[in-house]
């Protein structure tokens, strides 16, 4: 198991390093960063001055290593738009996004897994068809639109929940649904196919031949095996949710990291943009690694 996890850790580190290169490279994507910073109508002297001031005149490799060394210490520089430390800014905003991510994935799992199990118990039955239909419908609804509809319905027409803000738990209800429903169909489908496959497997037949009661077969023997791939998927989906928080947070005007990402992009705030891409990617890498570890614990075949 140690070997398996160390292998995964190596890959995770390599991926993280690559992502850092890409995040850093962003500032060169639109051409000379000094020109961009200087703005229009800048004289060549001013541009040269800015270039020297920000160290853009050094070799790119040196600039990258310098940036990375600072980043590793949590120093992403100062945001030119918000005029404060990027790290402080993000740390402040991340709380809402993480809360939302945890709530979203919980919602997706709590709805998706039972639905998948129910559908798998009677393939091609009405329940199964209904579950699959809901999944296809769910996957086709754009989340920003769904958010707006929910606002119209629950905030404007019924007045049950606030349309925006995170002042109380009520403010999280709609964003959680909007963030979570998009991952639900995938989780439901994977649970369903996993359960159908497992329920048709030889060892379930063995369990039945032993006279194990049906309920125990379903939960002890079948679900335990079917849930293993779902763990990996949930980690991936949770990573995606952080990205999805950009949309959700801007629809519900929640001032989390996703909203910050949108602000930094529309204001051309490069240091913040870089830091956010790196941090969101790192979260994804950490989630998937944790899922691998959890799977090694769930599946004895991965332990040896």
């Amino acid at each position, binding site marked *: 198991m140690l070997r398996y996890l160390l292998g995964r850790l190596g890959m995770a580190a390599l991926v993280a390093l690559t992502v850092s290169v890409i995040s850093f490279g962003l500032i060169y994507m639109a051409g000379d960063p000094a020109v961009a910073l200087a703005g229009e109508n800048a004289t060549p002297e001013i541009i040269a001055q800015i270039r020297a001031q920000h160290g853009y005149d050094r070799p790119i490799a040196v600039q990258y290593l310098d940036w990375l060394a600072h980043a590793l210490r949590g120093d992403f520089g100062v945001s030119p738009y918000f005029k404060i430390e990027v790290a402080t800014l993000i740390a402040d905003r991340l709380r809402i996004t993480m809360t939302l991510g945890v709530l979203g994935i919980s919602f997706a799992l709590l709805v998706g897994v039972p639905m998948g199990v129910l559908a798998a118990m009677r393939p091609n039955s009405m329940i199964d068809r209904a579950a699959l239909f809901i999944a*296809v419908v769910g*996957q086709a609804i*754009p989340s*920003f639109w769904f958010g707006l509809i929910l606002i119209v319905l629950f905030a404007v027409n019924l007045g049950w929940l606030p349309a925006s803000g995170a002042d109380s738990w009520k403010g999280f209800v709609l964003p959680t649904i909007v963030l979570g429903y998009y991952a639900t169909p995938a989780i439901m489908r994977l649970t369903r196919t996993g359960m159908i496959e497992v329920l048709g497997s030889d060892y379930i037949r063995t369990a039945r031949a032993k006279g194990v009661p049906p309920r125990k077969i379903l939960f002890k023997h079948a679900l335990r095996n079917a849930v293993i791939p779902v763990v990996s998927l949930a980690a991936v989906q949770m990573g995606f949710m952080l990205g999805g928080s950009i949309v959700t947070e801007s629809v519900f005007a929640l001032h989390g990291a996703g909203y910050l990402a949108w602000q930094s992009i529309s204001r051309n705030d490069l240091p913040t943009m870089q830091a956010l*891409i790196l941090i969101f990617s790192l979260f994804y890498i950490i989630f998937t690694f944790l899922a691998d570890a959890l799977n090694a614990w769930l599946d004895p075949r991965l332990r040896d």
Partner: protein
Amino acid sequence: MTMTRTLPLSPRRQMAQRALRHRGLILSGAVLLAIVLIAILAPVIAPHDPYRQSLVTRLRPPVWLGGTWQYPLGTDALGRDMLSRLIYGARVSLMIGLISAGVSMVIGTVLGISAGYFGGRVDSFVQYLINVRLAMPVILVALAAVSLLGGSLLIVTMVMGLLLWDRFAVVLRAATMQVRSMEYIAAADMLGATQPRILWKDVLPNVMSHLIVILTLEMAHAIILEAGLSFLGLGVQPPTPSWGLMISEGKELLLFDSWLIMIPGVALFLLVFSINMFGDGIRDVTAPEGRN
């Protein structure tokens, strides 16, 4: 018990037969065909110029909310005909879906098949690429790229094409690995077939059904993503009639004229829903064992 054993049909005939019996496939196929025809014939069937603004005819409601047949779906805040913008918007969505998914397909298929077929170092490298790609949040990277490079239709399409190849690579890698281990591959090798020939004649046809299914899924994905980017103001730029942009523009009047977002939203849903249904149908038809 004398029963004449009938010969099973050829794979292609079997598929055709299953396709004709598949209600979801036929229905979604019909809707898709209609949308495609509308997009192609947009200049002929659109009642108005989708770009023409008119302050006099601002925010006319659709007919069922008391509007007139002159603007069946009403007009937007700039007085542009909603129906005409919707019709032209189909062009944008379909084009973005097709081209982005096409670019992704080429990248993902080449990576996935090479990884699955050659294994070893090639496989490790492709897995690394897939992991890097998956670690980068799509929306964030797409938004950043579009904001840095400028938001033209071409750039949005290409950025998405370069981002959405992961599922092709993951699925085709697994499918190719399975095909690779089949004995007909070893037999072809023994019979002097070159590697490109084996890839073309033996591997590709046997992973084709996966490829088509993913293609539909990614088309839907690209269409939704474009709408999302445009909604956030960093996708297709105004005044292009994009459905996502229409929703974004209607957002301001959400509380008063909610049909402004309902109409493009329903259109978007219908298109994406049909594409997904169609993809599901193809999967059922090509691999019926995958369903039960």
